[in-house]
């Protein structure tokens, strides 16, 4: 049977952002995938060179609105390292609380979207109802529901009030119980398990070779978590477990996120109990000379910001590496050999965030050999922009 090309995207109900995937299909089975990323390209790295670190922070958090605290935290860490500034301990703990609340909302969001992708609308609504609780706590802590510029270079912008500490200690254990119930639903309900178990299997060693990060690789039994392997902020003082699942299928990747939700509520409660006293921000000089590197475990995996300053008020170069970009070679391998109907489930299991992915270069991945190749704009026009 000859292979048929099936185009998914740029506007497609299974994709919540504009990207295109070209699936080579034989009957019902996917045999090859060619991703075409770059629709979300906004030129952020180039824009960053025109902005001071105060302005740059607002641009950094708009790389991705869902994991915005991870990006601001990573940007701030990189600039603080370049400027050689030490953050006060209270600010470190407050950053951890905001970062974990952000991760909680991101994971609940994904699990809801995953339920919607497989047609389980009730679970979608339930997850998003509980997510609103996290959003209101996040709003009280930072001042806005989604994008808030809470982390700033040298510390954080607001202190936490004792009333909010009590409120969090009251509400979060209730949320913990609800997520435990959802965990039972996700591991027992056939609506979910039959769609995800043994779908999109990939081994841990293969994912390591393809450079995958975050919950995607933890779902295949590889214990990589920057909070544990290379602790930043206050994570070296907080005890927690790194969640891994051995199965390596879509179900395992979703369950890693459910278990992480439970674990990070414990992290927030521990941080609230051990919150040190003191200032929440230090001064940072306007002109900086030096290099800095920030590495943060965002909800989807490792984020890297590398910044070079040459004595001016703006950076000479700012480089960002985001988790979904690293996961795309991995997810292309996962599709192969599974049915067309499994495409949304498998794509959802890496929690794709293409707003993160596209920043400067248009890069194409040869899914067969796993090699990357950069194309010039002329080549792309010739090949894809047929009139």
């Amino acid at each position, binding site marked *: 049977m000859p292979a048929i090309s099936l185009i998914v995207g740029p506007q497609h109900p299974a994709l919540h952002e504009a990207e295109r995937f070209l699936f080579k299909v034989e009957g019902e089975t996917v045999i090859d995938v060619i991703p075409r990323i770059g629709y979300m390209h906004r030129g952020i790295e180039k824009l960053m060179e025109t902005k001071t670190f105060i302005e740059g922070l607002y641009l950094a958090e*708009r790389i991705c609105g869902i994991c915005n605290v991870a990006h601001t935290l990573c940007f701030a860490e990189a600039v603080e390292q370049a400027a050689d500034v030490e953050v006060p301990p209270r600010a470190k703990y407050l950053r951890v609380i905001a970062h974990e609340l952000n991760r909680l909302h991101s994971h609940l969001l994904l699990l809801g979207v995953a339920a919607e992708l497989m047609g389980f609308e009730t679970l979608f609504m339930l997850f998003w109802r509980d997510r609103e609780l996290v959003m209101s706590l996040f709003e009280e802590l930072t001042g806005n529901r*989604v994008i808030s510029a809470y982390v700033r270079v040298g510390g954080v912008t607001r202190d936490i009030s004792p009333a909010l500490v009590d409120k969090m200690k009251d509400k979060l254990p209730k949320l913990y119980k609800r997520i435990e119930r959802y965990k039972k639903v996700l591991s027992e309900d056939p609506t979910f398990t039959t769609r995800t178990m043994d779908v999109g299997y990939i081994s841990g060693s293969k994912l390591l070779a393809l450079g995958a990060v975050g919950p995607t690789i933890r779902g295949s039994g590889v214990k990589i978590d920057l909070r544990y392997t290379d602790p930043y902020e206050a994570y070296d003082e907080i005890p927690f477990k790194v969640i891994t699942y051995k199965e390596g299928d879509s179900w395992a990747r979703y369950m890693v996120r459910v278990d992480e939700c439970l674990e990070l509520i414990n992290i927030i409660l521990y941080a609230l109990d051990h919150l040190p006293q003191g200032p929440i921000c230090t001064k940072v000089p306007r002109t900086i000379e030096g290099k800095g590197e920030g590495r943060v475990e965002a909800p989807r995996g490792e984020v890297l910001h590398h910044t070079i300053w040459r004595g001016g008020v703006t950076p000479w170069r700012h480089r960002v590496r985001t988790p979904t970009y690293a996961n795309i070679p991995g997810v292309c391998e996962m599709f192969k050999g599974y049915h067309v109907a499994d495409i949304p489930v498998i794509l959802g299991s890496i929690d794709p965030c293409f707003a993160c992915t596209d920043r400067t270069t248009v890069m194409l991945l040869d899914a067969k050999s796993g090699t990357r190749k950069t194309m010039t704009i002329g080549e792309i026009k010739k090949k894809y922009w047929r009139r």
Partner: protein
Amino acid sequence: MGIVQWARIKSPWILHFPSPGCNGCDIEVLAALTPRYDVERFGILLKPSPRHVDILIVTGAVSKQVARRLKRIYEQMPEPKFVIAVGTCAVNGNVFQGSPFVYEGVDRVIPVDVYIPGCPPRPEAIIHGIVTLIKKIKGGGNGGRK
């Protein structure tokens, strides 16, 4: 008021087109559909195909790569069609102003009926924007044609 106009006001269907913003507005549009805000009580339903919808919701700044696709989706919608620009990026480009790859606002590409500023706008603001558009249709607006 004919039956078609009556149906359009009572149950406008929407298509959500996420152009390259930061996803912040996208999740707020989705949050407006879920139990706490529940935009469905105004008869508003999210639909996957541009051929079925009355209202196009655009979030995020429009990049040059997406602009042609956005135009095509707009052309595929049946008349009369309405566009809502959600978020400051869709209104004027926000922090991406000055980037050579981004248009400063959706109205540079397709005509817009309602602008909802905010970064991201709260779900209440999005609901208010949609209700404003419904009022505009009731008053006999000129649709997408400017």
